[in-house]
C-alpha cells in the first residue's frame, strides 16, 4: 500500500461501516509519517464526540404520529373547500352513465359553480372502509418481459401476466410474481427469486416490487393519489358510471431526462394515466388500467383482469423453495475486497466489470458484481468477448446510479452497444454493477 492509498483508507475508516480487511494497519505500522497523520485525524474526530449523547425525548414518536394524524384530518376537512365543480357537471354526473372529467383540485372555476365534496370525502372514507380487509388478490397483464424487474416495462413487448397476493391477517405477508420472477414477504423478510438460480434477501420494506407496491396497500391508494394531486405531482379527474367511481390520474414522467435512456422503461418514468375503478359503496378497488403516452401514441401497459378480496390463501404461497445452487445477491457491505483496487467512479466500475468479463477474471469481477459467484450464463457470455469502447457516464430517469455506454464484440462476431448500470448509493459507497449487460 502506498502512502496515497493509505491516506484514502484513513478517511474511509471514519465511515459508519468502515471497510474492513484493508492493509491500512500494516502500513501504519511501517510508516511513521502516515501513523502520525492518522493519530492527528483521530484526535480531531475524538474532540467532536460529545461526552453525553442527546436523544429524542420519551414519547417523541407518538407526538409525530399524532401530528401526522391531525394534519391529515385537517387536510380532509380543508380539501373540499378547494374543490369547485360547475353545477351543470354535477347534474350530468348525477344523471348516470356520462363520463365527465373534472379536476379534483385546481383553479377550475365557472359561473354558477357549486362546491362539491368529491375526492376528499371518498378517500377519507376509503381507509376506514378497507381497514378490515383480510386479503387482496390481483391478477393483471403488464407490457414487459419475463424475469426482468417488476417495475420494468417495454412498449413494444407483449402483455405478460403478473399476480399479487397480500394477506393482512393473521400474518401480514405477500407474494408478487411474473414469469421467471417471484418475491415473497413472509411477515419478517422478503426473498426475491429469479429463474433459474438467482436470489436476494431483503427486509419488510425492500423495494423488490417497486411500482406495484401501492396495489398491496389498497387502503392507501386514494390517499396517495390525492396527496400527489395536492402536491402538484399529478392531475386527476373523476367520473361516475354505473355505481363505480372512475378516477383518472395523469402524471408526467418522473426523473431527469437530459439523457432519454430510461424514459418509458417504467411506468413512473413515463408520461402516463392511471384509470382506477372504485366501488361507490364499498370504496374497494375494482380495476386499474395504465396507459403510457409515448409521443402521439397511447400504449396500454397494465390492465387488471381480476381483483378479489378476503380470499383465504394456501400458506405455502408465502414460502419459496430455492434450488440448492442458488446464486445470492450480496448487499454492498458484504461484497468481497478482491485483487483489484475498488473503483472510485462510475466509469472505473464499468471498466473493472467489462475488462474482468473480457479476461474471464472471475475474482476481479466479484469486486463489482454483487453476487456470491459468477453465474454460468454470464461466464458463457464472456467467452471470447472483446471490449471495443467504454464511453462517458450519464444519468437518466429515476435510477439512483449511473449509466456507462459500452460497445463489445461477442464470440459470434456480433457487436453489442448498450449502457451498463452501476451505482454506489450505499453506506459503504461501494460501486457495483446493477444491470445493462
Amino acid at each position: 500500500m502506498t502512502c496515497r492509498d493509505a491516506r484514502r483508507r484513513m478517511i474511509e475508516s471514519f465511515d459508519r461501516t468502515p471497510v474492513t480487511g484493508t492493509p491500512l494497519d500494516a502500513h501504519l505500522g511501517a510508516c511513521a509519517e502516515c501513523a502520525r497523520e492518522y493519530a492527528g485525524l483521530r484526535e480531531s474526530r475524538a474532540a467532536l464526540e460529545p461526552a453525553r449523547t442527546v436523544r429524542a425525548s420519551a414519547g417523541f414518536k407518538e407526538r409525530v404520529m399524532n401530528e401526522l394524524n391531525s394534519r391529515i384530518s385537517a387536510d380532509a376537512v380543508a380539501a373540499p373547500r378547494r374543490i369547485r365543480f360547475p353545477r351543470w357537471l354535477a347534474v350530468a354526473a348525477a344523471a348516470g352513465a356520462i363520463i365527465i372529467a373534472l379536476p379534483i383540485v385546481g383553479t377550475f372555476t365557472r359561473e354558477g359553480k357549486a362546491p362539491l365534496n368529491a375526492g376528499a370525502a371518498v378517500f377519507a372514507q376509503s381507509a376506514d372502509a378497507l381497514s378490515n380487509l383480510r386479503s387482496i388478490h390481483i391478477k393483471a397483464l403488464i407490457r414487459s418481459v419475463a424475469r426482468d424487474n417488476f417495475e420494468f416495462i417495454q412498449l413494444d413487448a407483449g402483455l405478460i401476466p403478473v399476480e399479487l397476493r397480500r394477506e393482512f391477517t393473521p400474518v401480514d405477508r405477500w407474494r408478487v410474481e411474473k414469469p421467471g420472477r417471484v418475491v415473497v414477504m413472509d411477515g419478517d423478510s422478503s426473498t426475491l427469486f429469479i429463474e433459474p438460480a438467482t436470489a436476494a434477501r431483503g427486509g419488510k420494506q425492500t423495494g423488490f416490487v417497486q411500482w406495484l407496491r401501492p396495489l398491496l396497500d389498497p387502503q392507501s391508494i386514494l390517499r396517495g393519489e390525492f396527496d400527489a394531486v395536492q402536491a402538484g405531482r399529478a392531475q386527476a379527474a373523476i367520473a361516475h358510471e354505473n355505481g363505480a367511481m372512475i378516477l383518472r390520474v395523469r402524471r408526467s414522467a418522473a426523473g431527469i431526462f437530459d439523457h432519454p435512456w430510461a424514459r418509458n422503461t417504467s411506468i413512473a418514468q413515463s408520461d402516463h394515466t392511471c384509470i382506477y375503478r372504485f366501488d361507490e359503496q364499498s370504496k374497494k378497488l375494482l380495476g386499474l388500467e395504465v396507459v403510457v403516452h409515448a409521443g402521439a401514441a397511447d400504449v396500454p401497459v397494465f390492465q387488471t383482469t381480476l381483483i378479489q378480496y378476503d380470499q383465504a390463501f394456501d400458506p405455502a404461497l408465502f414460502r419459496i423453495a430455492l434450488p440448492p445452487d442458488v446464486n445470492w445477491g450480496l448487499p454492498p457491505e458484504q461484497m468481497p475486497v478482491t485483487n483489484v483496487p475498488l473503483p472510485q467512479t462510475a466509469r472505473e466500475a464499468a471498466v473493472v466489470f467489462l475488462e474482468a468479463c473480457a479476461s474471464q477474471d472471475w475474482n476481479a469481477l466479484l469486486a463489482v458484481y454483487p453476487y456470491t459467484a459468477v453465474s454460468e450464463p454470464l461466464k458463457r457470455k464472456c467467452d471470447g468477448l472483446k471490449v471495443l469502447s467504454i464511453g462517458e457516464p450519464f444519468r437518466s430517469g429515476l435510477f439512483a446510479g449511473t449509466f456507462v455506454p459500452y460497445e463489445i464484440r461477442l464470440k459470434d462476431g456480433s457487436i453489442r452497444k448498450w449502457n451498463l448500470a452501476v451505482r454506489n448509493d450505499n453506506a459503504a459507497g461501494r460501486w457495483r454493477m446493477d444491470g445493462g449487460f
Partner: protein
Amino acid sequence: MTEIAHSWPQTREEFAEFVEALQNGLVRYAFARLGSLADAEDAVQDVLVRAWLARPAHAPAAFAPYVYRMLVNRCIDIQRSGRVRLAAPFADRPDAGRTPEELAAAAAERARIEALLARLPEREAEVLRLRVFGDLSFAEIAAVTRAPLATTKSRFRCGLEKLRRAMKGRP
C-alpha cells in the same frame, strides 16, 4: 435488471418504523444546530410529517437523505430567523431518564463542539455535523449535501485537519 431505490414509507405503519429508526439521529443533528431540544424536536417533527405527506409514490432518492436535507434547510431557516430558544435548551421536554445536571452538561458539550466547528468553512462543518451527530455514512452525506462522494470525504478530511491545527493554536 436495474433496480430503482424505493425506500420511501408508503403506509403509516412503515412511516412509524422510519420515525423510530431515524428519530435520535435527526434530533441529535438538529440539537447540534439549534442548541435547544425543544426547537430541535419541533423541527424534526415538522420535517418528518411534511416529508411523508409529500411522499412521491416513486421517489428518486432514499427517504433518510431527503429528510435530512429538509432538516438542514429548516435548521438554517430557524437560525436565520433568530427564533432559537437558546435560553432554555431543554424547556418543555421533560424526560425522566435525564437529570437536570445531565441536560446542562449536554448543552455545554454542544456549545463546546459548535465553537470548534465555527472555525471551519460551513461546508466542512456540515459534513462533520452530519457524520458525528446524524451518524450518516459518507454516501448518505453526499446525497444530503448533493456533493460527489469524493468531495464529501475530502471535506471531512480537511475539516479534521483544520480542527487539529486550530486545537494546537496554529493557523
